[in-house]
């Protein structure tokens, strides 16, 4: 969405890796160096790198749970309330007859559960997503990318580190 975005570029170093283990090494090294907010680009999630990063479990699950529960409540609430709002007798059954309403409750559980999950992902990616950082199409293809935001004086050593880890290409982005 480049054309939507008016954030100024972040200065830093962008390294590309062909080898997954190299990228993992780089990550470990960076963490060792105390780098926090660097970004790793992956075409597909890789266990090695995830291990190297070892992040907390995504909070998305909480949203799924809340959504699901809301849906369930809504399902039963709606059906029962609507039944008594205009009591109508059918087939000699109770005005509000729970067993059939389970279906509605269940469906809404799933529906809201799913929607809130997706909403959560969007939310987190938008909130926590870093802006103006460099990217290279290769990363969606067959290379792993690491971008380390760095102040001018930091650039050289970081480059060093990444090269040492086995980056095939390192270029630095100026603000």
């Amino acid at each position, binding site marked *: *969405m480049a054309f*939507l975005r008016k954030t100024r570029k972040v200065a830093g170093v962008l390294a590309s890796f062909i080898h997954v283990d190299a990228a993992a090494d780089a990550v470990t090294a960076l963490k060792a160096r105390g780098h926090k907010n660097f970004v790793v680009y992956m075409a597909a999630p890789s266990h090695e790198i995830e291990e190297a990063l070892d992040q907390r479990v995504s909070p998305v699950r909480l949203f799924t749970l809340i959504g699901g529960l809301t849906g369930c409540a809504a399902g039963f609430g709606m059906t029962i309330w609507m039944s008594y709002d*205009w009591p*109508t007798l059918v087939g000699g059954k109770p005005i509000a007859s729970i067993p059939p309403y389970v279906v509605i409750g269940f469906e809404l559980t799933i529906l809201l559960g799913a929607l809130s999950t*997706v*909403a959560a992902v*969007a*939310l987190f*990616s*938008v909130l926590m*997503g870093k802006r103006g950082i460099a990217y290279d199409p290769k990363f969606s293809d067959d290379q792993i990318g690491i971008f380390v935001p760095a102040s001018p004086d930091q650039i050289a050593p970081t480059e060093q580190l990444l090269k040492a880890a086995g980056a095939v290409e390192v270029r630095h982005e100026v603000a």
Partner: protein
Amino acid sequence: MRTLAIVLGAVCAGGLVAVLVLGGSRSAAQTTKPVADSVRAAVITDTTSLSGPRQPIFFRHDIHAGQFKIPCQYCHYSVAVSSEPGIPSIQTCMGCHLAIAGSDSSAKTEIKKVRQAWSEKKPVEWVRVHYLARHAHFPHMRHIKVMGPNACATCHGDVSRMPQVFRVNNVNHMGFCISCHVERKVSRDCSVCHY
């Protein structure tokens, strides 16, 4: 990702608005705007500004029912015994208007039309104001029986103040009937009206 968020937001907002709007439409507001506040019905020169459909004869309920206090049932003779209120026959009009020719000029001209209709044996074709779909049966007599002979205004508005009858409530909206039935704790079983 941001766009995704925007889209989702928009959808939710839209849904919310829709619900509010539909919900709002439930309450049928009852607004009768008084045309003449004195008992003496006003002389009306400009009829174009009046609300309600233009009738072939400018029959003024505000004069007949308002000023002269003629009870509704004098003309709408069957409302207490039948589901139909009864549109008065020209004969009924002529009962008085053989004698009464009208005070002012406008009245005179209108009354002439009545007499003409009578002599030509051509019934007047009134424009319908209140319409009820035919799959709903509304027994006028029961409502008059329960709510008294002057209950007409409940649905039709204060006709005695209308120079030209206009629709105050959409009596063809089921919600209008139901809210009243709920309020008065009388049956709202479907088959009371629909059969």
